[in-house]
C-alpha cells in the first residue's frame, strides 16, 4: 500500500518533465515525418519514373539514387546522428536539442520513406498505366492522375509506418543530445536508475504508437476503395 502511494506521489512529481518530453517527442516526430515524406515523395517519383519499367527509364539516374538510398539506409541510426553532427550544426546552428535532431531524423528516414512510396507506386497494376497511355495521357499526367490516386492508400500506410519508426528513432536521438522521451528515459531512468521514469516513458510511447497506428488505419480504411 505504502509502495503504491510512493509510486503515485513520484509519478505526479514527474508530470511536468514527462509532458515537456512528450511535446518534444511529438515535435521531433511530426516535423521530421513531414519533411522526410516530402523528400521521400520526390525521390520515389524519380525512382519510379526512371526505373527500367518506368515511363521514362534512365539507368544512370536510377542507379545513382538506388545506391545513395541504400547507403543512407545501411547506417545504424545512432551512428548517422553522430556522422551528421557537422551538417546539423551548419543547418540549425547547434547539434543538440529537439530542433537539431530533426535534421538527422529527416535525412535518416527520407530514404526509407522513398522506398516505401516507391513500393506503393510499384503495386499499381502496370496495365492501368498502359490503359492510361492508350488514351493519350502524358507522362506527367500518368504520375499525378493515375499512379498517385491509385497508390494513395498504400502511401498513407507507408507514412503511418514511417511515423512510428521515427518516434522510435527520436527516442534513440534523445540518448545522444536530443530531447524528448528518450532523453528522459536515459537521464532520469538509466543514469539515476529510477524505474518509475522508465515505466512512464515506455507507457507514453506505447500509447503514442497505438494512437498513430489507429489514425493511420482509420484513414486507410476511409480512402481505400
Amino acid at each position, binding site marked *: 500500500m505504502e509502495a503504491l502511494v510512493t509510486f503515485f506521489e513520484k509519478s505526479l512529481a514527474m508530470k511536468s518533465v514527462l509532458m515537456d518530453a512528450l511535446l518534444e517527442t511529438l515535435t521531433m516526430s511530426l516535423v521530421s515525418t513531414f519533411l522526410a515524406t516530402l523528400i521521400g515523395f520526390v525521390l520515389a517519383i524519380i525512382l519510379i519514373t526512371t526505373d527500367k519499367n518506368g515511363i521514362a527509364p534512365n539507368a544512370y539516374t536510377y542507379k545513382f539514387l538506388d545506391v545513395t538510398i541504400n547507403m543512407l539506409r545501411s547506417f545504424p541510426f545512432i551512428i548517422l546522428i553522430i556522422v551528421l553532427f557537422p551538417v546539423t550544426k551548419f543547418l540549425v546552428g547547434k547539434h543538440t536539442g529537439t530542433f537539431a535532431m530533426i535534421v538527422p531524423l529527416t535525412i535518416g528516414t527520407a530514404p526509407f520513406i522513398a522506398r516505401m512510396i516507391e513500393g506503393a507506386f510499384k503495386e499499381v*497494376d502496370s*496495365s*492501368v498505366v*498502359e*490503359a*492510361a*497511355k*492508350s*488514351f*493519350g*495521357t*502524358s507522362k506527367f*499526367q500518368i504520375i499525378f*492522375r*493515375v499512379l498517385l*490516386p*491509385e497508390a*494513395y*492508400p498504400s502511401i498513407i500506410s507507408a507514412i503511418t509506418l514511417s511515423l512510428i519508426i521515427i518516434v522510435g528513432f527520436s527516442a534513440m536521438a534523445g540518448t545522444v543530445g536530443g530531447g524528448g522521451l528518450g532523453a528522459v528515459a536515459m537521464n532520469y531512468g538509466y543514469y539515476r536508475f529510477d524505474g518509475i521514469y522508465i515505466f512512464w516513458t515506455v507507457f507514453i510511447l506505447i500509447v503514442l504508437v497505438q494512437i498513430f497506428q489507429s489514425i493511420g488505419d482509420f484513414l486507410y480504411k476511409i*480512402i*481505400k*476503395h
Partner: protein
Amino acid sequence: MIDIKHLSKYFNNQKVLDDISLHVNAGEIFAIVGHSGAGKSTLLRCINGLESYSEGNLSVLDKEVKTLSASELNSLRSHIGMIFQNFSLLNQKNVYDNIALPMSVWGYDKDAIQKRVDELLSLIGLEHKKFAYPKELSGGQKQRVAIARALTLNPKILLSDEATSALDPNTTKSILELLQEINAKLGVTIIIVTHEMDVVKKVASRALLLEDGKVIGLGRIEELFLKPDEKMMKFLGEDEELPSEGANIRLFFPSNVSYQPIVTQMARELDLNFNIVWGKLEKLNNHVVGSLVINVDEQTANVVTHYLQTKTEVIWEIL
C-alpha cells in the same frame, strides 16, 4: 484505315513479328488470332504505339506510327480506344470517374464530360452503377465500364486485347454483342486479339492467323474456317482421319445452301451409297456454313462430282 506493310519486330535478337502485311478496312471487325506467345498482342500494341517495331511500315489513320513525336502519338491515341483482358480500371475511382478520365485528361469541360459519360452509361446499360467502385462490379460489368472509357473520346478504332478471355461464356457473349452494337451503331472499326476461336467466328468478318510471329492465314472467316489449308488445320487442332481407300470428296456448303438436304437428295437421285467420314456445321458471323467429307468408290467419284457441279451450289474438292 490501318495499313501494315512488311512489319517486323525483334526482341532481344529474336524475331517476334515476322514480315506482317495487312490492311484493315474502315468499319469492319477484324480478328488477330493465335496461340499464346504468337505475337498477336504485340502486333495490336504496335497499332497504337504501345510497342515499337523494328522494320516495315505501319500507318494508322494515314499516319506512320514510327515517325510520330510523343505529343503527335498521344493525339493519335485519342482516336484509338483500347480494352484489356484484366479491364485495367482505376480501383480508386468510381465508374463515373473512370469513364470520365480520358476526357478530363484531354481537358474537356465538366458539362461536356457529364453529358458524354451519361450517354455511355446508357449505352453499356450501367446507369445504376454510376457511383460504384470497380470492386463492387462483376467481371462483365468491369469490362463494360472499360469499353465505355475506351469510347469516351469518340475513337475511330477500338483495340480489344483478349477482352473476353477472363469472362465466362455467357458474359463473353454479352460483351461480344455490345462490341457488335458499337461497330454497327457508331461505325467504330474494331480489332480483336483473341485465342478463342468461338469469339472470332461469332463477330469477326476477317481474320489474321499468327504463329510464332508469322502470318499463316489471312482472309474472310468463311474461307479460313471452311477451307482450312494444312497449317490452318493444324492450328485448329483438327487432324481429320480419312479412309485411305476410295475417293474422299470434301463438300463446302455456303450459307445459302447449308440448310438444304443436298447429300441425301444426291444419294437418292444417283441411287448411290457413300460414307460420311467427317463433317461439321458452324455459325460464322451469324451465317451457318458447313463442311462435309464423303468417301465413295474411285469409279463413282466422277458421277458424284458431275452431280455436284451441275445440280448444286456446293463447292467441292477431291482430297
